[in-house]
């Protein structure tokens, strides 16, 4: 390869954009030809200078937060590029789009947030093979465990529903929504039911609410100052039966 060809291909060579054969040919030539070798050194030096971090403009924090936090429509009033109407309409779209997780969390009701953590915990309990801390179908073993071993400051109801074919599998101490909670595990024909309970912040009773998330059925209610959340992949009917039975037995 002669100097003219090498000079022509020096830049794609330096960028690693040539096929192996030509890459090697040029490499050989650069070893032998002093003039071309100098050109390569010069190019190398330029590229080093361009790689200086000072030349890179990072997005200002204000822009970053404008794109990520809910201030887009306000800021759009100052925009110079687009007609205002389009900008506002698109801004709302962007807002909805970009905020994603953040806004989903911020705009969510408290129940939605709890539903998410409860569901995540249910799935985790199935995945990591950590279904129970205390494994027993005897409510007289499970219930004291929470007070004696887990040292909880409340006593969960642990009804025995085995006669109705909802088998107590055991209990687990979890940490959800910034507080320790009791997770009771029941089985119905190999379907796992996680029932979470903790003392509510209000004393008002709530009737049963229904949710479906990612194919899981969720029920929650509040009774006698205790909050209850139930998650399972069990069908609606059987889960409702479970909730009803649980309430009846717990009330005894």
């Amino acid at each position: 390869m002669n100097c003219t060809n090498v000079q022509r291909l020096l830049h794609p060579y330096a960028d690693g954009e040539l096929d192996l054969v030509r890459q090697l040919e040029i490499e050989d030539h650069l070893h032998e030809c002093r003039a071309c070798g100098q050109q390569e050194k010069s190019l190398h030096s330029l590229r080093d200078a361009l790689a200086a971090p000072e030349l890179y403009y990072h997005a200002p924090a204000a822009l970053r937060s404008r794109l990520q936090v809910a201030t887009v429509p306000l800021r759009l009033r100052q925009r110079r590029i687009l007609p205002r109407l389009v900008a506002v309409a698109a801004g709302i779209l962007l807002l909805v789009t970009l905020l994603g997780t953040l806004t989903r969390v911020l705009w969510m009701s408290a129940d939605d947030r709890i539903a998410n953590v409860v569901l995540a915990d249910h799935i985790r309990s199935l995945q990591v093979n950590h279904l129970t801390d205390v494994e027993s179908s005897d409510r007289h073993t499970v219930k004291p465990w929470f007070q004696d071993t887990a040292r909880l400051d409340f006593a969960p109801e642990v009804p025995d529903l085995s006669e109705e074919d909802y088998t107590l599998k055991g209990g687990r101490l979890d940490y959800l929504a910034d507080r320790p909670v009791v997770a009771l595990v029941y089985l119905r024909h190999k379907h796992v039911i996680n029932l979470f309970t903790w003392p509510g912040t209000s004393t008002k009773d709530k009737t049963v609410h229904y949710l479906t998330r990612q194919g899981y059925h969720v029920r929650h209610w509040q009774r006698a100052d205790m909050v209850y959340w139930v998650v399972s992949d069990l069908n609606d009917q059987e889960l409702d039966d479970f909730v009803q039975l649980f309430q009846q037995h717990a009330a005894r």
Partner: protein
Amino acid sequence: MQAHERKLFEQAMVPHIDAAFNLARWLTQDAHAAEDVVQESYLRAARYFHSFHGGDGRPWLLGIVRRTAFDWLGKYRSEAIASYNDETHDRGDDSMNPASLAIREDEQQSVRSALEDLPPQLREAIVLRELEGLSYQEIATVAQVPIGTVMSRISRGRRQLQQRLAGSSQEKLP
């Protein structure tokens, strides 16, 4: 946009805010305009996200950024774009390279101004290649030009930088 699409958009586009701003800043040479361009680009990206077919979101987003930036240039700095043409620039300055040139760290400022002085099309190619580390193929995607054009713009951009830097260091001599 559906929830899952929104999530995809976030994952594919939001990490490239710096890349978007860097390109917009180098093309417009104006910090405020760059912010506007980036914001506008994200709006456009959200609007046209259905035409993004997965993979690395950076070239796709940067393609929108460069179009938005060139729109801005066309409106406010039309002379800057008009001054460059791949065809006419293909003749002329390619043969001559300046002699060996070592750039010292204290010449950072001259590197910056040399890059600022390049025609936007060459500046774009250099910024995408040297500052952003994109491949020729990715730059071709961003700039919507054939890969051969990318290659000649990069070579030409670097040669012009070398010439400008060689010129500026000679001026400093007593």
